[in-house]
C-alpha cells in the first residue's frame, strides 16, 4: 500500500517535472541552443548520485566496479558540460546595449 502510494508520488513528480521542462525549455533563447545542449549534458550527470551509492556502499567488488565506472562517466559529463557551457556563454556580447536584445 504505502509502496504503491510512493510510486504514485514518483509518477506525479515525473509528470509535473515534464511540464516544467517543456515550459522552461520552450522559452530558451534561440541564440543559446548550443549552450543549452551542453548544459543539459552537465545536468544529465545527475546520475552521479546513483553511482556514488553503488560505488561507496558495502557491496561485492563487481557491483562497486560498475558503480565506479558510472561515477566516472557522470563526473566527466558534469565537468565538461558546465565548463564548455560557460566557455560558450562568455562569448555572447551585446556591444554594451543589453536592453536591445530582441530575441530574449
Amino acid at each position, binding site marked *: 500500500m504505502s509502496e504503491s502510494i510512493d*510510486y504514485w*508520488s*514518483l509518477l506525479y*513528480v*515525473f509528470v509535473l517535472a515534464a511540464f*516544467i*521542462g517543456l515550459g*522552461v525549455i520552450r*522559452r530558451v*533563447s*534561440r*541564440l543559446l*541552443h*548550443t*549552450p*543549452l*545542449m*551542453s*548544459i*543539459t*549534458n*552537465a*545536468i*544529465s550527470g*545527475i*546520475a*552521479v*548520485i*546513483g*553511482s*556514488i*551509492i*553503488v*560505488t*561507496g*556502499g*558495502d557491496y*561485492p567488488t563487481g557491483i*562497486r566496479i560498475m*558503480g*565506479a*565506472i558510472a*561515477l566516472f*562517466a*557522470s*563526473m*566527466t559529463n*558534469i*565537468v*565538461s558540460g*558546465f*565548463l*564548455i557551457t560557460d566557455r560558450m*556563454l562568455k*562569448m*555572447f*556580447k*551585446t556591444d554594451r546595449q543589453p536592453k536591445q*536584445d*530582441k530575441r530574449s
Partner: protein
Amino acid sequence: MNAVVQLSYLIATVLFIFALHWMNTPMTARKGVYAGVAAMVIAIGATWAQPEVVHHGWIIVAIIAGFVVGVPLSMVPLTAVPQRTALSHAFGGLAAGLVGTAKYYLWYSEGPGELTTFRMVAIIVEIILGYLTFTGSLLAAGKLQEVKWIPQRPVTYPLQNLTNLGLLAIAVVVGVALTVNPTAAWAPALFPVVILLALAFGVLLIIPIGGADMPTVIAILNSYAGLSAVAMGFVLDNKLLITAGALDGASGLILAIIMCKAMNRSFLNVLFGAFGQAQQAKTGGDQKIYKEETIEGGAQVLEQANLVVIIPGYGMAVAQAQHKVRELYDQLKRRGVTVKFAIHPVAGRMPGHMNVLLAEADIPYTDLVEMDEINPDMPQCDVALVVGANDVVNPSARSEKTSPIYGMPIIDADRAKTVFAIKRSKNPGFAGIDNELYFSERTWMLFGDAKNVVGELVKQLSGSGMH
C-alpha cells in the same frame, strides 16, 4: 534518506529549474551555469554524506578521473561540439545502464523482496534506454568526427527497419519475462541478454542514418538519456533524478522537434528515412551557368550598399571564417553600412551553431536576426552575402513540390537587390540538391574557401577604405 538529504535534493531540483530558466536570455545565462553547478555540488555532497556510503577511495578516484577527462573534453573547438555532445550522451547512457545492472544483481543476491514488478519495469526500461543510448551515441559521435573506419553514408540493407524493430521486440519480450519472475534461477543469466540486445539495437539504429542527420538524432538520443535517468529515479526512488532527467529529456525532445520543423521532416523520416543517401544520388547536376564576380567588384558593391545582410551557413563553420566575417562587418560598419546577420534555425549542423560561431568572433548578438524577423526586410536589402549557406537559402523549398526540402522555411535571399554567394565549388549542400538562387540574374558567385574570399574582400576594403 534523512531530512537533510531530502531538503538538499529539493533545493538542487529548484536550482536546476532556475539554471534552465535563466537560459532564456544571454544576459542571465551564466547565472544559470552557476545555479547548475551549485545544484550539482549540493546533490553530490548530500549523497556522499549518507551513512550507507562507507568506502570513499574509489569515489575519490572516479571523481578525479572525471575531472582529468572532463576538463580537456571541455576545450574542444566549437566545430567539435556536436560530437562532444554525442559522446556525453554515451557516457550518460552508460552510467544509467551500469547503475541499473548493478542494482539488479545487488537486489537479486541481497534483497529479492526489493525487486517489485514496478521496480523491475523501471530497471528494464533504464538499461534498455541506457545501453542503446550508449552505443548509439558513440556511433553518432564517430560519424560526426568522421572517424575513418566508420561509414559516413547511411548503411542500408533489405528489411532493415523490420530487423531493428524485431530486435527491440525480442529485448522487450525478454524484459517482460524478467519482470514477471525477477528472482528465478535463470534470471541473472537472462539479464545480460537484454543488455546485449540493447547495445546491438543502438548500433543498428544509427548506421542507416546519414552523417548530416546526426544533429537531429543526437537531440533524440539526448531525450533517451534523460528518460533513462528518470527510470533510474524510479528504481532508486529518487525524485531529484526524476526531475533532472525529465528536464534533460524535455530539452532533447524540443530541440529535435525544432530541427525537424525547420527541415520540414518528420521524426520517423529522420530515424528511418536513410536521408543522407539522397546526397550521393542527386549530386553534381549543373548545366546552368553561374555568373562570377571579382573581389574588387564585390567589395565595391558592398561599400556602396546601405543595408547588407550576411547569411552564414555550414560553410562558414567548415572554413572557420567567422573571424574574417567579423573584420568585414567592421569595415562595412566603419563606412556607415548597416550590417545584419540572418540566422536560419538549422543553418550549420546543430541548433544555434551560427550564433555561437559569430559570438566567438565578438559580433554583438543584437545584430543576429532570426529568419522570421529578417525576411520582411529582405526586399529593402541591397546586398545579401551568402557565406557558405545553401539549403537555407534555396528558393525551391517554396515552390518545387518534388524537392526534398519542399516546405522548409528559408531566408529570402533571392528577394534582395543583389546576392553574392560564397562557396568553393558547384556541389550542392546537405540536402544534395541544386540551388536556383545561384542562377538567378541578381546573383553573382564568389567561388573559393569562405575564409579566403571574405579575407580578400576585407583586404580590398581596408586597402581602399583607409584614406
